[in-house]
C-alpha cells in the first residue's frame, strides 16, 4: 500500500497508486485526482516496500528547499492555481473556513478579538463573527482553558489560544486533568473537541520564559494529541484537521515561522493529524525533524548533498502519536537515523522518538540513533548564546557525517 505524503485533498488517498517518478520539474498527480493540485517541490510516492522511483539517471534533481521561503518553481500548471500567503494567514484562513463551516467553532484567548491576535492569526475574525465567538479573555489561562473545556463538553468546539505557548504552563492543570482525562474518567460520555494552539519555540532573543518548548511537558498526558506545523500548507491543513477532530489537539506553532510564504491550493483540504511529511526522499540517512528545525535540516541538506550524501528528511508533524509507519519505512530503507529537534535533550520529543524507534525497529538500525536537541538550558537573552542553544545546520552536517562513517 503506497503512502502518499502530504495528504492532499480531504480524503488522503492511501491507495496503491503506481509509484511516480520524482521529478521536481513537474507536479506529480495521483491518478485519482482529476484536478491539478499545486504541489511543493519535494513530493513523492513511497511504496510500501520502501522503494522510491527516481528518475532514470539515478541522480536526483538538486532542487531542494534552499531557504525558508518555500517556492513551488517550475510547475506551469500549478502556478495558475492556488494563492500565495504567509503562514499566519494560512492559519487564519483555516480557522475562518472552519468557523464558517460550523457555527459551534469559537476562539478564546487573550487579545484574539479586537487586537487580532498577538501574531495576527485571528485578525479580522472578531469583526466578522462577533465578540462572543472570538472571545477576548482576561489574563487567566487556567480558568479560560477550563472554560473552553467546559464549553467543549457541552457542545461547542473552542480553539483556545495561548498568547505564547509558555503561558499555557499556567493552564497545565486544566490541560492535564481535564482536557486529557475527562473523556476517560467519564467513561466516554463527554468528548473534549478543543484545539489548544499558540506560538512556542526559540525566537529572536525573547528571553528564557518566552522561548519555551512545551512539547516535552505535554507529551506524557494521556488523552491528547499533539501536532506541530511548519509550512503554510500544513499549517492550514493541520488547523482544519485539528478543529474537526473529536480529540483534544495541541497545535504547536513557531514564533519564527509565521512569515513563511508559500502557495497553497484554493480548494478545501486537510492534513491528517497523525501523518508525517516526506520533505526530501533519500537513501543514506533518515533525518527526523519538526517545526523550525526542518529548515535548519534542509539548509544542512544542501551542504550534505554537495558533499555526496543523500539524506531523507521527514517532518514528523505528529508529535503524539508518532507516525511510526512512515518513520519505520524510512528506517528500513536507510538504516540510520538522526533526530533534529528544538526540544530539550532531557525527556524531549527526541528522547521519546529514540525509544519508540529502538523498540520497534532495532533490527534495522546499522548505527545508534543520534539525537540533536537544544541544550538543557533556559534560553539566554544574548544572541550569540541563543544561537548555540538550538541546533545549527553545521552541527547537523557533522552529525550526518559521523553517522554515515
Amino acid at each position: 500500500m503506497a503512502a502518499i505524503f502530504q495528504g492532499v485533498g480531504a480524503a488522503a488517498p492511501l491507495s496503491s497508486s503506481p509509484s511516480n517518478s520524482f521529478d521536481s520539474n513537474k507536479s506529480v498527480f495521483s491518478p485519482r485526482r482529476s484536478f491539478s493540485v499545486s504541489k511543493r517541490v519535494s513530493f513523492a510516492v513511497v511504496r510500501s516496500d520502501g522503494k522510491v522511483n527516481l528518475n532514470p539517471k539515478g541522480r536526483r534533481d538538486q532542487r531542494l528547499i534552499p531557504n525558508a521561503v518555500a517556492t513551488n518553481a517550475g510547475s506551469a500548471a500549478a502556478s495558475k492555481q492556488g494563492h500565495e500567503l504567509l503562514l499566519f494567514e494560512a492559519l487564519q484562513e483555516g480557522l475562518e473556513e472552519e468557523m464558517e463551516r460550523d457555527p459551534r467553532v469559537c476562539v478564546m484567548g487573550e487579545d484574539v478579538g479586537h487586537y487580532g491576535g498577538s501574531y495576527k492569526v485571528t485578525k479580522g475574525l472578531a469583526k466578522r463573527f462577533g465578540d462572543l465567538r472570538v472571545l477576548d479573555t482576561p489574563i487567566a489561562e487556567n480558568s479560560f482553558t477550563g472554560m473552553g473545556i467546559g464549553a467543549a463538553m457541552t457542545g461547542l468546539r473552542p480553539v483556545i489560544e495561548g498568547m505564547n505557548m509558555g503561558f499555557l504552563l499556567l493552564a497545565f492543570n486544566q490541560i492535564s486533568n481535564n482536557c486529557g482525562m475527562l473523556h476517560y474518567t467519564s467513561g466516554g460520555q463527554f468528548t473534549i473537541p478543543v484545539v489548544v494552539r499558540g506560538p512556542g519555540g526559540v525566537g529572536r532573543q525573547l528571553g528564557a520564559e518566552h522561548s519555551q518548548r512545551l512539547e516535552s511537558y505535554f507529551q506524557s498526558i494521556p488523552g491528547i494529541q499533539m501536532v506541530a506545523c511548519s509550512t503554510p500548507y500544513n499549517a492550514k491543513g493541520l488547523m482544519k484537521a485539528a478543529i474537526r477532530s473529536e480529540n483534544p489537539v495541541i497545535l504547536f506553532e513557531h514564533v519564527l515561522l509565521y512569515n513563511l510564504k508559500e502557495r497553497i491550493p484554493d480548494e478545501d483540504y486537510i492534513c491528517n493529524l497523525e501523518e508525517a511529511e516526506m520533505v526530501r526522499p533519500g537513501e543514506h540517512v533518515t533525518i527526523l525533524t519538526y517545526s523550525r528545525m526542518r529548515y535548519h535540516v534542509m539548509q544542512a541538506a544542501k551542504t550534505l548533498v554537495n558533499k555526496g550524501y543523500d539524506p531523507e528528511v521527514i517532518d514528523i508533524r505528529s508529535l503524539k502519536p508518532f507516525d511510526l509507519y512512515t518513520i519505520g519505512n524510512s528506517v528500513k530503507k536507510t538504516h540510520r537515523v538522526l533526530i533534529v529537534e528544538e526540544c530539550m535533550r532531557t525527556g524531549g520529543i527526541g528522547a521519546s522518538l529514540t525509544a519508540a524507534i529502538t523498540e520497534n525497529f532495532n533490527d534495522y538500525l546499522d548505527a545508534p540513533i543520534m539525537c540533536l536537541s537544544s541544550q538543557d538550558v533556559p534560553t539566554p537573552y544574548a544572541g550569540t548564546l541563543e544561537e548555540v542553544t538550538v541546533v545549527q545546520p553545521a552541527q547537523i552536517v557533522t552529525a550526518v557525517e559521523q553517522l554515515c562513517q
Partner: protein
Amino acid sequence: MAFSTATAYFAPQPFPLNTASPRSHDNPLITPASASPFFGSTPKLRLSPSPKFNLHRRSGSGVSVSQVVKEKKPKSTRSLLITKDEGLELYEDMVLGRAFEDMCAQMYYRGKMFGFVHLYNGQEAVSTGFIKLLKQQDSVVSTYRDHVHALSKGVPARAVMSELFGKTTGCCRGQGGSMHMFSREHNVLGGFAFIGEGIPVATGAAFTSKYTREVLKEVDCDHVTLAFFGDGTCNNGQFFECLNMAALWKLPIVFVVENNLWAIGMSHLRSTSDPQIYNKGPAFGMPGIHVDGMDVLKVREVAKEAIARARRGEGPTLVECETYRFRGHSLADPDELRDPAEKERYAARDPIKALKKYIIESNLASEAELKAIDKKIDEVVEDAVEFADESPVPPRSQLLENVFADPKGFGIGPDGRYRCADPKFTEGTAHV
C-alpha cells in the same frame, strides 16, 4: 424579589482579626425570639449596605447575616413555603442522600469500595435545595463530594453505587470512581478531584448556554449551571478568575459555596483573611448571599431567586451556604480536630429532622407517609447495592477504551488496520 446589583454591596464592619473564637463557640445562630429553625418565613434578601447591622459573627454576641435579612412573620399568618408534593420530594431526596452515604460508609468498611470516599452527611439541604429546582438540561458541576449531587440531579442510585464499586455498569463504566461522577444524560459535568478545577468547567457550560442563545440564535435556551464547591476552594485562584469572567460576561451560573468550615483539618478561619465568603461576590460585581445551609427551605428560596436571575440573563450569583458535614472529610479521616460540642450543635440542626418537623407541624403530610418514604429509600439503596454487587467488573480489554474519542483518526488505514506501527498506543473504539 429581584437582586439589583446596585444594592448588592455589603459594607461590613471591620472584622476583629484576632478573634480566635471559631463558630462553634457562638451563640446559636437563631435569636431567642425564634423558637424553631423553620420560621416558614420568606427570607427577604435586602442587599442594601447597612452599617447598623453588626456583622461580627465570630464574636460572642454575633448576629448572623441570615438573621439580618430574615423577615419574621408571625406563625399564624405565614404562608406555606412548599406544597405537599414539593415537601415530600425534598424529603425523599434528602433521605436518599443520607441513606446512600450511610450505605457507602458500610460498604467501604466491608471492603467493597476503596480509595478516597467523601461523604455528604449533613449537607443534604444544599444539594436538595438547589438541584431540585433545575431542569434536565441544566448542568451541575461538583467536587469530590459529589455522590449526592449526582443523585439529586437524577442519576440512578444503581449507577452511582456501581461506579463506587468499580463495576462496568457504573455511570462512568467504573473508570471514574467516587470523585468523578459524570452523566451526560443528566448533565452532571463531574466530579473533580482537585478543588477549584471544576469551577472553570462550570463557567464553560454557562458560556455554552449564552453562546447557544446569542450566536446559535436559539433564543429560548436558558440553561443554568450550578457550581458547587467548598470553603477551601474560595481561596483558590480559579475561583476568583471565574467569578470575574462570569460577572464580566453575565454568564448564567450560580456559584454555590458549601461552607462547612473545614478543609480536611484546616479551619476556614485559619486560612482565610475575610471568612465571610459572600463578601467576595460584590467585589466582582455580583450579589453575594449568605444563607443557612442546614435549612432546606431557606436554601430553596435563595436558590429560586439566584437561578431565576441567571435564567433571565442577569448574570451570576454567589451563594454561601453555612453548612456542616457530620462525618470526617473522607472515610479515611479520623476527624479528631473538630470540637465535639460543635458537632453536637450542628447535629441538632440536622436538615432532615428539621424538614420532617416542618412538614408534620404544617400538616403537609403525616408521619406515616414520611415513614413510608424512609422505607422506600431503604429499599432503593439496598437494591442499588445488590445491583452493584452482581454487576461484572470491567474486563482487561476495557483498559484502553475511551482514551480518545476518535481513535479512527489514529492512523487507521482504509484496510482497518493501524498505520502506526505502534498499535499499543491506543486500542478500541469510542464507547458511550
